[in-house]
């Protein structure tokens, strides 16, 4: 019995120690890969707009470029590729008369199905927030910190190109 208690407490203590070291990452490192721009915007606490725009269905969001068959009046701007620890993120803005009407995800972390699953939840939320805020000042999605940071950086670079 003593051994069992020792094994359980030892394992749990080891895991907690490991994970608490891992969760003390000071800031989410995202490096810009795609050429210029990439002025990484820290997701400050501005818009609390996620309330109004979350009617998006999880898992359903535009993936891949939609630039080829755009209706007249709409233009596409590609953001830079933002490299996150889980893989690169790149988005594409579709706008009509300076208004963001759509965001497509060109590249997303897809090493594991788990990454895709997280993206399937996070991207619709992030896109919803973007459409509501109409700028790059949006909140990260909890549980998808890295993907959010990559998204926001790529989004900001697209917004910078447009300006």
């Amino acid at each position: 019995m003593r051994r069992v208690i020792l094994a359980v407490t030892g394992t749990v203590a080891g895991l907690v120690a490991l994970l608490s070291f891992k969760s003390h990452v000071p800031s989410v490192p995202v490096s810009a890969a795609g050429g210029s721009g990439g002025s990484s915007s820290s997701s400050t606490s501005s818009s609390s707009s996620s309330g109004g725009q979350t009617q998006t269905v999880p898992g359903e969001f535009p993936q891949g470029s939609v630039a080829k068959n755009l209706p007249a009046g709409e233009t596409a701007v590609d953001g830079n590729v933002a490299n996150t620890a889980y893989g690169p993120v790149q988005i594409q803005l579709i706008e009509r008369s300076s208004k963001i009407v759509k965001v497509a995800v060109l590249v997303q972390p897809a090493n594991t199905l788990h990454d895709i699953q997280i993206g399937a939840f996070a991207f619709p939320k992030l896109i919803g927030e973007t459409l509501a805020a109409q700028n790059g000042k949006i909140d990260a999605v909890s549980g998808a910190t890295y993907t959010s940071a990559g998204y926001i950086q790529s989004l900001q670079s697209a917004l910078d190109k447009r300006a």
Partner: protein
Amino acid sequence: MTSVARRSGPARHAGAEAYPGPTQPSRPGSSRRPEARPAPVRPQNRPARVGPRGLLAVIIVGGAVVVALWWHSTPGASGLGGWLTGAGEVLGLLCGYGVVVLVALMSRLPPLERGLGTDQLARWHAMGGRYIVSLVVAHGLLIVWGYAVEAHTGVVSETATLLTQYPDVLMATVAGFLLLGIGIVSMRAARRRVRYETWYYLHLYTYLAIALAFSHQFADGAAFISNLAARFWWSAMYLTVLVLVLWYRVVVPLRSFRRHRLVVLGVKAEAPGVISIYIGGRRLEELDAEPGQFFRWRFLTRSLWWSSHPFSLSAAPGSDRLRITVKNLGDHSQALARLQPGTRVFAEGPYGAFTPADSGRGVLLLAGGVGITPLRAIFATLPGRVTLIYRASSERDIVFRNELDSIAAARGATVHYLVGSRAKIGGDPLSPRVLRSLVPGIDQQEAYVCGPAGMTSAAVRALRAAGVPRQRIHFESFEF
């Protein structure tokens, strides 16, 4: 308590033992007296061995490397989902590593067999097995929960997603349940509710479980997916242990079967329910068997070939014959009494770390019942000052009395027989007081204990109380 401390020393094969022959001459030509031939020349250094501390250090370093692999591959763990998933990943990696260690412990690797002994390896395996099976269960639960939290879905739907969409997770889940089932049966086997053979053959399913669980590690494990080097070394680890198992559990015994051609020479009744089996063969000195070691024996008759049982050598191994002594404990040992001369024998071994070296101290051998068998072999060969205490419940149960007396006379050693039930003798004959009076200077001696579990633990306690330090008390348990 460690059963056997390691030491290096000169070879203990001081000389050939006067080898007792079977009473029933079994074959024409086997009546030659083997003791007449010169002792086989033994190498001066004992075969290599790894002790418990060394092995533990290797296992811990390996575990640390595995945790480092997770650390290296994980960007961060934030929030409840991140923590749960992170913990699940660490445990998963440790399981993948742990099963390999568990199999390696049972690979019959000679340095481990001689260094820790089969009984201690089996105890480590059983303990580690329970731990790893618990980790497997925790790994599954934590991953489901963590993924569900991170994907903002329910636990049930996440379970379905994992099983149906994640590559190879379904196979791994089957493997997990297999391991859990084997773990439960093993615990029941430890309590003697399951037949040894059932337990043994069920255990072979662990290999299936390990194979089923292998692919999901690379297909879903973040630590491997983008790390070719990690995949390479991980596979190398699995492959190494697979080769070790195949080599030492299959190839070496088969080769030894062909080379040594073991056959039953004869069976001799020693005491009620106790028989000795004499086994002849060729070039047996190449086995490097030491007194105190055992083999796993498989007698190739129609009814016995499928089960193998560990029995100690009850006389120092000769170059052309071996002797084992078996107490009638079940169907199997009953059938052994009817073995016909000429029956071929498949033996795996030698195994066991119950092999005293000449430490320069006096040596006390403490035997209980049929536990005399390995001590009988040691008694005849161990150089130095040796005392044998033999505990038996009645005169009739004493085996090897004549042999022991003549060995004692030849080498000037002492044998004490402690006979009779406790009630008859009036108290425990293995009390510290009795031990001290039988063995003057007992606290300066090395002690080797072999007997039934109850007797062994009582004897170890008495020896401690009589002033023998723990590291000089060695015992082997037959329960593996």
